[in-house]
């Protein structure tokens, strides 16, 4: 409950901050439209040549692009800006202010920054998914929707843990802003179902930078082609990574020496 309460507080703070810059809403809208437009254009070009890509039809791929937008938004609203702030704080020594607060430090650094306008992606993603499902004439059953929600939550947990571990590296190597580029490059590859890639690249996108779980798995759940075993595996991995990242964070914090002290 504490998590939700803190998240709500920081969310209100972030919202009040961002609401001062209303023009940014339109900028975000244009950006989302551009990203999505490009993604849909790519699907259009590919499906001008064929009617299925490794078993995926074009509306199914549009569902995947919707999930990609939604997940990008979910991460962009709170995880990504908070982790960027964490890395900056470690470098400048301003993490002191967080560590002295009487709340769990991991919790505080994870929700410290909120970018409200990225919610545009969180809203547009499901719209695209819904439109594509409607186009297929497919009503996603309760089972599919439930599996999708579980996969989405587990996928976000996996990516959150991954970001946290990546950012925790800052305690040892101070200048690591560039490391976040690794994630962006990999997340770009997740625009397509990871099943199309050769084995080594699939393994990379699944186990090293686990973007596969965040986009492909929820999309598969929604179009009804995810086996229960994969769903269970995703949830288990999410649990394991949450624990491991927590452990890693605890070790990292002990390495923090501060700037002023």
């Amino acid at each position: 409950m504490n998590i939700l309460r803190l998240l709500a507080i920081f969310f209100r703070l972030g919202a009040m901050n961002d609401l001062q810059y209303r023009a940014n809403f339109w900028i975000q809208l244009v950006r989302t439209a551009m990203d999505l437009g490009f993604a849909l254009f790519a699907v259009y070009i590919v499906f001008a040549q064929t009617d299925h890509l490794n078993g995926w039809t074009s509306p199914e791929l549009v569902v995947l692009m919707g999930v990609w937008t939604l997940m990008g938004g979910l991460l962009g609203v709170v995880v990504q800006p908070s982790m960027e702030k964490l890395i900056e704080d470690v470098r400048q020594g301003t993490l002191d202010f967080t560590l002295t607060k009487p709340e769990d430090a991991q919790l505080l650094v994870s929700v410290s920054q909120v970018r409200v306008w990225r919610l545009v992606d969180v809203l547009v993603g499901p719209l695209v998914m819904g439109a594509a499902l409607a186009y297929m004439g497919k009503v996603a059953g309760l089972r599919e929707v439930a599996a999708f929600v579980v996969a989405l939550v587990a996928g976000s947990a996996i990516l959150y843990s991954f970001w946290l571990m990546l950012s925790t590296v800052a305690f040892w190597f101070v200048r690591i802003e560039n490391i976040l580029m690794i994630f962006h490059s990999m997340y770009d590859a997740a625009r397509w179902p990871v099943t199309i890639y050769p084995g080594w690249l699939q393994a990379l996108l699944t186990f090293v930078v686990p973007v596969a779980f965040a986009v492909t798995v929820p999309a598969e759940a929604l179009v009804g082609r995810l086996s229960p075993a994969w769903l269970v595996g995703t949830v288990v991995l999410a649990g394991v990574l949450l624990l491991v990242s927590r452990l890693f964070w605890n070790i990292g914090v002990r390495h923090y020496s501060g700037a002023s002290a």
Partner: protein
Amino acid sequence: MIGGFGDIYRTLFGLELAVMFQYRAAVIIWLLGLVLQPIVYMVVWLRVAESKGGRVGDFDAGTIAAYFLVMMLVNHATFTWHMFEMGWRVRSGFFNAILVQPLHPWHRDVLQNVAYKVLALGVMLPVALLLAWYFKPTLDPPLWAAVAFVPAVLLAFLTRFFLEWTLALLAFWITDTSGLNNLYMAFVLIFTGRLAPLSLLPQGLQSFAAWSPFQWMVAFPVELLLGRLTPAQTAHGFAMQALWILLGFGVMQLAWGRASKRYSAVGA
């Protein structure tokens, strides 16, 4: 005069190389995107070809692999990042240091660009060889095409550099250029043939690419090395490159004249 320029170039190049070497890790991290993206689209098109019994357009698996691997190298050779840096230079007042140098700033940016590429090539080439071993491209250009490929890449670099440096100058008028840069990157992705070989795009978009500088910035050298162009098409390509280089350089000089007058230093 020429000798003087040679000295300046040699000194500055050594300097930029040393600076880049300090950021070894960053150099390699940037490479990841440059390598991964061509692989993604290569795999997409390989799958499309598979679904149609091995061919898409006039490409088969071997030529698709060759197309995207050569694309990866040509894109590496020609890409620039100054549009992402210029805004920062203007906002932070870093431009002051550039303006007091008795040299048009684009010279130094070219050298910085080449320094990065030379250093990154040490990683890029082994990676390209490894990928070639894995994806088995068929690359068998006629000798004249392989020879013409070298000047084609150099001219492609200049075409792209002048265009993108001019766009970068927009930072003097617009405070936040990141949206514009994103739009431009989407254009580059589509019209330079990085998303798909241009012959797979709809006819209207193909004609646009052919009149724009985009086709000549990346796709032209790639198709040349793949042996897909006739000598006449190649000559046309060089002519288009020359045209866009002259045009790009002219507009860049014009824009630079106005931009540097407009600039009011921060921190001065």
